[in-house]
């Protein structure tokens, strides 16, 4: 990343209440130009509420939102002109054709879009030959493609996708993933992508934030957060007390994360696992199982199972 990269999205201490229900309590994150930014959280964490707030579908109760360096409240139209988005599943006018739907949204996108551009976009998203068909006959995947078409038709700088792979078959998921990478690499777009699936974010995002119960918890580069070199290793032994004593007396500088009667959790690199195993066994500790997970993956799994 270049020095002083341009901030496309700045969210500071965003909060949203619906009556007594707190949907978002305190969310903060930044998205830089060129990012594919993962917005990760379990279902009900407040992702959709946050995204709807960014797109001015919802008014925040508290907090500050800036996009392209401008406050959203006072520069709504300027900002939205530069954003393309899909919020949840893309819904269109069933009684209109794909082409008519695209024209409807292109007309109010803030850009001048020609008929040829419409047809190019339809071809780009793989709907060539279906443009004259009414939306009532479209599958979910086809609607998703058309959703991406309407998000891109006016050549926006920022694309916001809220759970874009929901309901898609494996091929559809791959197509969306490739499309996002293409947008970043070939068209230099900034993408904010929300999901509740870590692996999905991991594959395409370079930066991410995790939120839960309306609060942002962790933010940073994906590689740093999901550092494969450090794992959370769970070892099942006959006596954790004795095992801890042995590990502490060794010169391995291990970090003991947690323990109970028979389970010991260590933060160690993958390369250190055999050495730890050997140390314990040589000192009379019975090792029943060793399981290694990345810290963040475990962390996120705990979140989603709460």
């Amino acid at each position, binding site marked *: 990343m270049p020095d002083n990269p341009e901030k496309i999205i700045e969210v500071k201490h965003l909060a949203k209440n*619906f009556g007594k229900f707190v949907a978002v309590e305190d969310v903060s994150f930044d998205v830089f130009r060129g990012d594919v930014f993962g917005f990760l959280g379990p279902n009900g964490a407040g992702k959709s509420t946050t995204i*709807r707030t960014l*797109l*001015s*579908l*919802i*008014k925040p109760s508290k907090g500050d939102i800036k996009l392209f360096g401008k406050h959203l409240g006072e520069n*709504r*139209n*300027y*900002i*939205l*002109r530069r*954003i393309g*988005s899909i*919020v*949840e*599943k*893309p*819904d*269109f*006018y*069933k*009684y*209109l054709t794909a082409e*008519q739907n695209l024209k*409807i*949204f292109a*007309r*109010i*996108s*803030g850009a001048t879009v020609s008929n040829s551009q419409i047809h190019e976009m339809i071809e780009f998203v793989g709907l060539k030959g279906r443009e004259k068909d009414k939306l009532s006959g479209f599958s979910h995947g086809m609607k998703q493609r058309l959703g991406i078409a*309407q998000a891109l038709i006016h050549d926006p700088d920022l694309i916001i996708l809220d759970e874009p792979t929901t309901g898609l078959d494996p091929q559809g998921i791959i197509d969306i993933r490739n499309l996002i990478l293409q947008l970043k690499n070939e068209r230099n777009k900034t993408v904010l992508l929300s999901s509740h699936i870590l692996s999905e974010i991991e594959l395409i995002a370079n930066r991410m934030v995790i939120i839960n119960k309306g609060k942002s918890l962790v933010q940073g580069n994906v590689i740093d957060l999901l550092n494969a070199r450090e794992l959370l290793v769970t070892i099942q032994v006959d006596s954790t007390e004795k095992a801890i004593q042995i590990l502490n007396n060794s010169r391995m500088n291990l970090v003991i994360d947690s323990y109970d009667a028979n389970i010991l959790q260590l933060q160690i690199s993958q390369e250190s696992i055999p050495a730890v195993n050997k140390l314990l066994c040589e000192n009379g500790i019975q090792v029943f199982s060793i399981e290694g997970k990345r810290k963040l993956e475990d962390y996120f799994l705990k979140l989603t199972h709460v």
Partner: protein
Amino acid sequence: MFWKSTYNEFIKIAAKPRSYIGLGAITLLIGIVLFALKMDGLTYISFITAPFEQSLSFEGNLLNGNTMAFIILQMLIIHIPLLVALVTGDLVSGEAAMGTIRLLLTKPISRSSVLFSKYLAGCAYTFIIIVWLAVLALGVSKVIFGTGDLMVLNSDGLVILQQTDVLWRFVSGFAVAFLALVTVATLSLTFSCFSENSIGPIVSTMAVIILFTIIGTLDVPIFDRIRPLLFTTHMAAWRSFFEDPLPIKEIVNSLVVLVVHCVVLLAIAVYKFKHKDILS
């Protein structure tokens, strides 16, 4: 952007099947009425002349296109509001139900502009309904029955308006009827801003019209003060153009009441729409 949005809204109205229900219903109803009057219109007309027929004889083309148009307007004008609300009540809530409102309101156009463009398209649809009604009621009636003087039976007596003096009255009457229907459209649009489904605003609009009409016709002193303020009381203002002399003061009063209703309802709709959180 506002005009582009209005064009979009008009395309949507034109593409919806329900938009043609109103036009079809008017065509069918007027067709039936004209057929019936062609078969036995003189019996119907005698209702108008009956109070005078012991002493007087009415000569000339009594069953003419102008009289038919007036009869049709009287019969249908109470049913047309439903046909208008069917479309205008769906303008906002229909998008919420369909989910398209999410896409629509993430575009760089203010919510007020979106709402006004929907309102304008709704008014244009209402205008088409009134024009179609006029073409069928007046135009087709004149082709079938010919032209002639218009007999209007009011509560204070019979007014016979000469055929050369009738067209401007019909045009003015239709214009006022259009304003009355625009008031209905505004009411249904306002309800639409509060609802997430199509049926609610339509049923609510008709419920309000029925309730206000009942209050308006109940001869109970307790309602005397509010009756002149109800928009339903003034929905028949078009009829005032067929009186002689023209009750200018009453007509202007009706226009003011209807316009005030439109302005107030629209203000409520704009406020709600602007501040609404889009959760659907």
